[in-house]
């Protein structure tokens, strides 16, 4: 009896949702005659990493709106379909299949590395084109259908170490990274190897996990006693802002150096910009850049969305859509092609195009899917990025 009761309750609840769907279904836009190219993306739209997922969603939607207003690509309108994956591989896999049902023809992969690797697993089976905006792990684009806009983890680690050594920023460096995060450990590993190869002295290596990312006093103390001149932070900006404020209290006086995950720190609501004064980071995107593209992007993005989401995630996604546009025009993709045919056409076109956008100039792609572009190092001076 007891079981039946519960089952009944669950059934009732489901009935409720179904009714709700029915209601939603009625509001669907009527099909227009125009061909619509649906570009799918999964990302964390809720939960711990929602700010990054939403930034990607907004960036892509902004680009799509601009392209559509200007007449679309080859006469096709584009539509962005975004699904929530809570930054989990499982979520990305489920989201991918939901996107297929909704008519996705090509994709922006997923936002975070682990999820993107799972997304790729599905995309490979279907030969679905994938251009991820922000998944940095090597495994995330391990297939000939996959490309990315951002730098890979190893590239960022290597480039950071090179930059520090070549510009003689410091000889003794320390690292604080997130050992429970693929992005952070990926950069750290290569950084460490390259730093040693370049003759830098890595004097302290500290880490934290998702469960212990509140109190960094122990790590900061260790960095302080190690006598490091530079602290490398291959982490996201939320945690970095905590480290910066705690380092200030502890009187840690070093150069802070980060990667693209740090971008967005100045956009944090109510952020005390003096904390980030002098922080250096390698980022593909500087919102203060004076070129027209960036200026326009920043203007239209902030007009439409909260400025908290204005960071390299959004910029990468914005570029990703324009890159897809360039590739589609190059490959002459038409609306009647299926996903697999589009993928075959685009993976050739991707290696032929040269793209200039808000995250880099003259970007080209190899068949491995990695972008070839120059990293930009910026320093935060008076609360703004200054290109070095």
């Amino acid at each position, binding site marked *: 009896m007891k079981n039946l009761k519960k089952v009944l309750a669950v059934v009732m609840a489901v009935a409720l949702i179904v009714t709700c769907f029915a209601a939603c279904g009625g509001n669907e836009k009527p099909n227009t005659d125009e061909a619509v190219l649906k570009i799918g993306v999964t990302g964390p739209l809720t939960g711990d990493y929602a700010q990054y997922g939403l930034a990607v969603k907004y960036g892509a939607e902004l680009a799509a709106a601009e392209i559509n207003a200007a007449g679309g690509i080859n006469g096709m309108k584009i539509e962005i379909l975004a699904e929530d994956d809570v930054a989990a591989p499982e979520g990305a896999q489920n989201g991918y299949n939901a996107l297929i049902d909704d008519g996705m023809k090509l994709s922006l992969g997923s936002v975070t590395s682990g999820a993107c690797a799972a997304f790729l697993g599905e995309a490979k089976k279907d030969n679905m084109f994938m251009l991820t905006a922000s998944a940095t792990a090597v495994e995330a684009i391990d297939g000939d259908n996959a490309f990315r806009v951002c730098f890979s983890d190893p590239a960022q680690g290597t480039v950071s170490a090179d930059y520090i050594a070549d510009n003689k920023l410091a000889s003794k460096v320390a690292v604080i990274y997130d050992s429970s995060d693929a992005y952070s450990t990926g950069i750290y590993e290569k950084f460490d190897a390259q730093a040693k190869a370049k003759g830098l002295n890595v004097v302290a290596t500290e880490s934290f996990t998702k469960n*212990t*990312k509140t*109190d960094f006093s122990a790590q900061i*103390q260790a960095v302080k006693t190690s006598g490091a001149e530079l602290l490398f932070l291959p982490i996201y*900006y*939320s945690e970095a*802002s905590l480290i910066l404020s705690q380092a200030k209290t502890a*009187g840690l006086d070093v150069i802070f150096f980060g990667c693209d995950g740090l971008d967005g720190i100045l*956009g944090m609501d109510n952020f005390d910009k003096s904390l980030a004064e002098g922080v250096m980071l390698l980022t593909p995107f500087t919102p203060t850049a004076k070129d027209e593209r960036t200026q326009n992007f920043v203007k239209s993005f902030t007009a439409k969305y909260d400025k*908290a989401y204005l960071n390299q995630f959004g910029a990468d996604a914005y570029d990703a859509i324009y890159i897809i546009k360039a590739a589609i025009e190059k490959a002459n993709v038409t609306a009647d092609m299926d996903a697999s045919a589009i993928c075959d056409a685009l993976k050739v076109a991707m290696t032929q195009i040269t793209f200039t956008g808000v995250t880099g100039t003259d970007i080209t792609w190899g068949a491995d899917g990695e972008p070839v572009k120059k990293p930009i190092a910026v320093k935060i001076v008076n609360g703004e990025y200054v290109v070095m």
Partner: protein
Amino acid sequence: MEFLSTIISGISLGSIYALIALGYTMVYGIAKMLNFAHGDVIMVGAFMMFTALTKTSLPPIACIIVGTIICTVLGMLIEKIAYKPLRSATSLSVLITAIGVSYFLQNSAQLIFGAGTKQFTPLFGNGSVSLFDGQVVISHNTIVTIIISVVLMIVLTLFINKTKTGRAMLAVSEDKGAAQLMGINVNKTISITFAIGSALAAIAGALLCSSYPILSPTTGAMPGIKAFTAAVFGGIGSIPGAMIGGILLGVIENLSKVYISTQLSDAIVFGILIIILLVKPTGILGKKISEKV
């Protein structure tokens, strides 16, 4: 010196855990339920204070009071809407409801305030005190956190042992039925417990976000689970136990980070917890429950 500063920051972190754990333990003692939504009440409190702080010109102390009042009301509302209908249900059913409430609060906060991380302005300034030629640095926030926590714990202990309402709470936690027969309004007492627990959570939120100044919809989740651990550690249902459990947890966490490994600090903290529970199966100050057939 390193040892001293480790201990101090451990106590600071631990006293925040302790304040949250107090809410867990009080609710558990009286309603016999694990209120997994407790951590999210902290987040709501912090968001309220953040909004008051950035959108109005109220002084910090007024912001704390506003946040605390809102949380108190919220705590009572949650109890009335989600938990009261389940008074006669098993404690596991209430646990699941609490998880539902936790998801609800997190997702509502994201929809209302956005997913972006916000920087919380420390309510007690950014200053710090230097000891031993700068070898030990203690921030004002740390000092205030420890003082407020200790004061609140003392007040709470006095309240429970000396006032009529407090003793009613004790009675309800001992035996609901008997308490009712003695003329205690059980529903009201439970409601008051939730109010106090949520008020403590709001203050803990203010302290947490002042010491570790970021704020996002998931800010409360991790401290919540740590505080739950602390409450069990100290002996769930015991108020001094929650305090000791919280502070010990903070100190152990920091010591293991400094002297063993930052990578393995979770494993070490939880490992020590298991060992302590093996020696003292009902937590440090937990009552030994004698079972009757």
